[in-house]
């Protein structure tokens, strides 16, 4: 995969910088459509959950938590189901398009977490959480980022599979069976949503800490003044 690099020169001051084309159009498009879908699905999912906020029996019913209506989408169960059943297709199509693009373009190599990335994860964790030295950046994503982003895609796939097991436990009875039955499928679906929301939270914190250039690169594709060198 050819990575494009541009050398930029300010015509007034003559200062030179560099920019790298990090995110192809398809990746950026999928990123933002998926962001919207994820929030709609989580919001409507929580409204659906409000109809039976438990993972046990109906009689006697032991509620797990009362999720506030203000933080849910759809207003009532039927409304939430409409949002959920509309956006699941946008979410699924975006996910398939993204994965398909990454595989066929070869762009997946930039982000896929593989075995040889494992040793580099701990130094990054030490840097972020335990004031360790900053490892040198060699490519767009460090090992920890690859690990987290690859996990997020895996969680996305699991969110769809668990969702289908809950929605169609008869037609996809094998899926429900794989997840330990209908009750477990519903619980997995719920936990995976929280894992994805946890990812989003961490992702937002990192974007806020690491600045504007990363955010802009997900909009325009180009990252100015990259920390790493390509040659």
């Amino acid at each position, binding site marked *: 995969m*050819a*990575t*494009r*690099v*541009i*050398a*930029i*020169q*300010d*015509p007034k001051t003559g200062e030179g910088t560099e*920019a790298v084309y990090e995110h192809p*159009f398809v990746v*950026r*498009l999928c990123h*933002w*459509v998926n962001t*919207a879908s994820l929030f*709609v699905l989580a919001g409507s999912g929580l409204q*659906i*959950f409000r*109809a*039976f906020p*438990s993972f046990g*029996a*109906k*009689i006697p*019913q032991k509620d797990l938590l009362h999720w506030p209506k203000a933080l849910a989408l759809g207003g009532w*169960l*039927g*409304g939430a*189901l*409409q*949002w959920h*059943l*509309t*956006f*699941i*297709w*946008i979410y699924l199509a975006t996910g398939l398009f993204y994965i398909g693009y990454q595989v066929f373009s070869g762009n997946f190599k930039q982000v896929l977490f593989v075995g040889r990335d494992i040793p580099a994860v701990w130094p990054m964790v030490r840097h972020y959480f335990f004031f360790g030295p900053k490892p040198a950046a060699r490519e767009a994503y460090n090992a920890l980022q690859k690990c987290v982003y690859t996990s997020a895609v895996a969680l996305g796939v699991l969110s769809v599979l668990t969702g289908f097991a809950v*929605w*169609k*436990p*008869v*037609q*996809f*009875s094998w899926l429900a069976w794989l997840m330990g039955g*209908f*009750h477990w499928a*519903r619980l997995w679906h719920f936990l995976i949503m929280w894992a994805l929301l946890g990812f989003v939270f961490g992702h937002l914190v990192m974007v806020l800490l690491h600045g504007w250039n990363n955010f*802009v690169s997900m*909009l*325009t*594709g*180009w990252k*100015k003044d990259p920390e790493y060198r390509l040659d």
Partner: protein
Amino acid sequence: MGSRTDSRRFKSIGRRELLKLTPVVALGTFAIPKLQAPLLKAGLSFSDWVSTKFFRSGHLAPTFANSEVTPFSRFPINDYDVDDPEVDLERWTLTVSGAVRKPGDYTLAQIQALPKITQNTRHVCVEGWDVIGRFGGARLADFLQTIGADPAARFVSFECADHYYESLDRATAVHPQTLLCYEMYDQPLTREHGAPLRLQIPTQIGYKQAKYLTHLKVSHVLDKLGYWEDQGYSWFYDL
């Protein structure tokens, strides 16, 4: 690789790339109050259409051993109105109309004369809970044959004593596990569970399983869907 440019031209490249993302703004149409309802309705229709593609008429819902059945006392009673619409069980009949050769009033004895099916299946509520129940009754398919239903008719719809109403597509109606149910847990239906006759459809969501049936109509078109469906729930909600 490695071309050069000046910073002004670089900014215009960035702007052009940003503009390419404008399709994302199309999702904002869901936030426009006037468009939201029709868009969500279209989404739900699409979802129901996909559901019809997933449905396999020969595929059976899982059945369970007697030991796995939820005790009768813990089988929830869900109504939209009253627990007991005070059906006169002595004089009750099921009134059959529409695209059938033998319309008229059918007694419970006539329905019970059909081969009896008993099955332990999962009842899934749209709210998210489920129970495994034991149900007994006649196949709706057998009854449709008895009344001489037009095999080309696409829908079977029901009216209930509590003014609830429901409708089924033909494939669901003739599914071998779809019952005109008159027994739960080997006892005649209790009033709260829909005496004397209810629908029991293991391949469909709970609200399709109408209780206190009074009318059955076979038709080529539907003038209304169902009590909940007409308020915005899925019509084809197979499990």
